[in-house]
């Protein structure tokens, strides 16, 4: 009792001191365990990334927008229309066999549209890339005016001449069904939106040219006519890719330019319609279900019980879906021509008829498209903004943003912690000499005083480290400009080798020329590492929302190399100047590894470089500049940190 009273009577002024001490202790605790905290954050982040495909993290898909009402209509597409599609197919096959030019094909399609009474036209276009490469073609399109509304809104059904996914080269059946649909849809008066039929030449560039001409955003490297006929704002678009003879499943492609996904409601509606109206199962990409086609590449060498376990089969199936998704999204490449629509706020997907011997054909596909158009026709407002951030692990399950975003962000936070820890560490210096004794007069035992670590603050010259950071990014910008010049692709092997050597050696040479730091100031390597980690963390956190796959790739490639670029940790080896300069060859090897990680793609992935540059110049995919200006300089900075004698 007395103790309690004594506790209550504790003098009040101590409260603040206690609070301060508590705060100080907490900070010390964090700082002392910084390496453990960082390791834990990064490890949890990576583990989370590995666990993304497990079923418990996903949830079943659902329709968010009530107005869509998918699969709630009676469809009228019947065998007569299938026959019409077959007729169109015959003509198109004739054109293909005669090796008809783009011009002839487009004219044929335009004439067919005109015969149906639609306002149709063709569009010539030519893209010129910096390497002097010219891509040209002719698109054909037609606009069906909406019988019920003023034509201020539109839906697009499109098909490209080429099919990139399928085994067949030409997307003839896709085009045939668009033509047949044009004649079929015209006879109904229930459309509240204009329907635009577009047949794009080639694969990407035709649709891209058409979209740019439609929206009046013609870039300088595109030479095209203006469109003769236009309609209103396009809300939704369906791209049909049907190249095989028949199909068993309908595959959906939804990744757009620069990692934008189409609204999930659209995919979910098509899934319901495909299932209930067409009787066709919907899959992601051309990945058949684990039960339908056992393709165990991942589990090929696994023990028998794993191969047989349904859980592992399911996991492996989802891993394949996520891998495919990441490979499209991280590079910012659209997975089909639908992705080009995304630039203009149009929700679009590609429906891909997965080739098989049967049982489905024009009949099922026509009904599915008809019903999907009816669903899109119902829309009164834009689909909701919350449904753009997801990972589809299978066609029926998806992950909400909260279930996958933290994985990349945790790695970013771990890097940020370590960077800030390095910054704090750089501000302190453990003096080796005895400090003047007049302060220690009161110390009873001078030996004890001497033995205690004496931390003293030191200067942190920010400017040199900042200059290194800026210079590496400027070098990246320069390298990017060189890569997009005409002479680079003409002699790619020599020019990329030269560029690689220059980009790797020049910073290394320059950093050794830098004046050595005075002992009372923090070494440049520490500050550089701190900035490097903080910047990389910022980049990862910010990209994670825009393009999660890219952020995850960055977290994987940057995480460990950047964290381990300077081997010392704040609490173990504070700062010992005589620690490492003896191992110069090791440092050089490490630097070579870093520069390989940064610029190695110049040497080993020439086709990827070419493709990325083409995507940037023609489609406006940001991946190439991002790698040159953001990613590679960050890795190079880490390499320089390793190279610096710390």
């Amino acid at each position, binding site marked *: 009792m007395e103790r309690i009273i004594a506790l209550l009577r504790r003098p009040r002024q101590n409260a603040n001191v206690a609070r301060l001490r508590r705060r100080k202790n907490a900070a010390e605790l964090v700082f002392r365990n910084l390496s453990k905290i960082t390791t834990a954050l990064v490890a949890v982040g990576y583990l989370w990334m590995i666990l993304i495909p497990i079923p418990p993290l996903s949830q079943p898909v659902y329709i968010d927008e009530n107005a869509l009402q998918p699969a709630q209509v009676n469809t009228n597409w019947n065998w007569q229309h299938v026959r019409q599609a077959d007729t169109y197919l015959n003509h198109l096959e004739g054109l293909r066999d005669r090796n008809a030019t783009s011009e002839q094909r487009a004219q044929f399609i335009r004439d067919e549209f005109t015969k149906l009474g639609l306002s149709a036209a063709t569009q010539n276009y030519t893209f010129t890339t910096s390497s002097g490469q010219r891509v040209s073609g002719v698109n054909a399109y037609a606009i069906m005016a909406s019988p019920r509304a003023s034509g201020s809104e539109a839906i697009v059904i499109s098909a490209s001449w080429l099919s990139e996914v399928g085994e067949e080269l030409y997307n003839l059946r896709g085009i045939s069904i668009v033509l047949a649909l044009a004649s079929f849809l015209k006879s109904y008066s229930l459309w509240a939106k204009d329907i635009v039929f577009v047949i794009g030449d080639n694969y990407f560039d035709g649709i891209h040219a058409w979209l740019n001409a439609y929206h009046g955003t013609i870039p300088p490297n595109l030479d095209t006519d203006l469109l003769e006929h236009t309609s209103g704002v396009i809300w939704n678009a369906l791209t049909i890719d049907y190249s095989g003879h028949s199909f068993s499943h309908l595959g959906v492609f939804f990744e757009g330019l620069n990692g934008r996904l189409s609204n999930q409601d659209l995919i979910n509606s098509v899934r319901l319609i495909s299932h209930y109206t067409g009787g066709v199962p919907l899959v992601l990409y051309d990945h058949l279900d684990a039960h339908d086609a056992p393709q165990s590449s991942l589990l090929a060498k696994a023990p028998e019980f794993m191969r047989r376990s349904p859980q592992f089969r399911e996991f492996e199936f989802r891993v394949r879906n996520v891998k495919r998704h990441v490979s499209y999204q991280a590079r910012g490449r659209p997975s089909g021509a639908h992705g080009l629509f*995304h*630039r203009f706020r149009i929700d679009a997907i590609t429906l891909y008829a997965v080739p098989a011997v049967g049982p489905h054909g024009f009949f099922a596909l026509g009904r599915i498209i008809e019903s999907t158009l009816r669903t899109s026709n119902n829309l009164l407002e834009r689909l909701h903004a919350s449904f753009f951030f997801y990972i589809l692990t299978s066609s029926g399950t998806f992950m909400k943003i909260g279930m996958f975003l933290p994985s990349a962000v945790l790695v970013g936070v771990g890097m940020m912690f370590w960077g800030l820890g390095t910054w704090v560490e750089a501000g302190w210096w453990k003096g080796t000499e005895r400090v003047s004794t007049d302060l220690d007069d009161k110390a009873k035992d001078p030996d004890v005083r001497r033995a205690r670590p004496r931390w003293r603050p030191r200067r942190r010259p920010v400017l040199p480290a900042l200059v290194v950071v800026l210079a590496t990014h400027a070098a990246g910008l320069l390298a990017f400009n060189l890569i997009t010049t005409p002479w680079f692709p003409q002699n790619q092997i020599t020019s990329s080798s030269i560029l690689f050597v220059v980009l790797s050696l020049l910073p290394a040479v320059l950093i050794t020329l830098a004046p050595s730091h005075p002992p009372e100031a923090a070494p440049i390597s520490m500050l550089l590492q701190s900035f490097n980690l*903080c910047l990389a963390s910022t980049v990862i956190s*910010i990209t994670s929302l825009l393009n999660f796959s890219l952020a995850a790739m960055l977290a994987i490639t940057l995480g460990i190399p950047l964290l381990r670029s300077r081997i010392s940790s704040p609490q173990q080896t504070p700062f010992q100047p005589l620690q490492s300069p003896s191992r110069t060859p090791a440092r050089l090897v490490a630097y070579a590894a870093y520069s390989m990680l940064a610029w190695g793609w110049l040497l080993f992935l020439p086709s990827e470089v070419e493709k990325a540059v083409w995507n940037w110049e023609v489609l406006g995919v940001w991946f190439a500049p991002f790698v040159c200006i953001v990613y590679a300089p960050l890795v190079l900075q880490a390499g320089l940190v390793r190279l610096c004698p710390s």
Partner: protein
Amino acid sequence: MESSWFLPLLVSCRLLLAFTPIPFTSGLQYDHQLSSPLTSYSRLKEGLWLYRHDVDPYVGGVFRHSPLLLSLFSTVLPPLPVVWAMSDITGAWALLRIWRARQRVRKGSSSRDSLVAAVYLLNPYLLLPSLALSTSTFENTVVLLTFMLASEGKQSPALLALALSTHLSISTFIIVLPVLMLLLTSPVSQLASPRPFVGTSVRSAGKYASEFVAYWLVLFGAASVMAGGRWGWVRETWVQGLYLDSPGLDPNAGLWWYFFTEMFDHFRPFFLMVFSVHLMIYILPICIKFQHDPLYASFLLVGILGTFKAYLTLADPGLFLSMFVLFPEVYPYLRHPIVTTLLHVHASPLLPLFHALWVTEGRGNANFYYAASLVMGVAGGAGVVDACFAGMRIAIGDIAEGERSKWEVMQE
């Protein structure tokens, strides 16, 4: 940095930038981060066109610029990019003069001259609005000129500049008090030795205040004459500028617009009052606490404005960040400069990216952009709070090495 060629090089680069057409800059003019309805270049051109065709530009709610800018650009100067470059250079020069006045460098140059100018000219928060031809560039320059003239003790020009700056942007009235105090004392740093305010006399304070009011009234009259003798401009430029009346809800980097898009109409007048009065709350406490160093008080108030202003653009926090260069004595006392920097490093890419996500790509909504502007608000707040406490901590001074373990510094 000490070399004599650096400064001319910088200035000529800035001038060159005004004459070279740079790709991507045409889009900057319509960027919501860089110019607000009150400062936008396209609106300025619209107003000038209306004015030349004898239409009152202040009717119709398009033109919100001050009549002084209208008269400047319709008579003296055409609105060419070089005017913005000159304004930037003048601003840098003013900052340099303030620095010299504070350091009592009468003749010759100090070693940090180039740095001071570079911090103003190369600050992306200031350079980008200037490339976007936002009139906030002129507002910043006039604010700096006010500080410069006040620091150099030129009373009448300083008061005229002060009146001009409140005319251009009404929110700058919050620096009136510290500028008057600055005129009565000196700009030299007194942060380390705080003492009660030692103004010359109450009478001269009254004299300055009345001189300011006189200039202000003259400018007011001139503006009204320029606007064709009508009073519509007061409502369009000032009342709107303070959000006092039917606020324009254009998104910007500030904290106000989203709040008012979400609000029911019948609460609006009350919250408009609260938000506007909120800005005034800071004036007296900061001026009292930093009565020994009014330049520092003005710096803090500029920071407040750069965080909480209505129609905030990046130029407002930019002015605050650039003015940091004037006070190197507080750097060792800043608690979390790297956190503030990192907040800005996060906020500045987040704003345009989330803006694109919402407006261009359509896969986000206003909440995304507002979240980014909240990060910007936190960054601004962190800077001001840190500067404020660093300015007070400097008076305690650096604790001797041996004493450090015995002391525990506390903030209440």
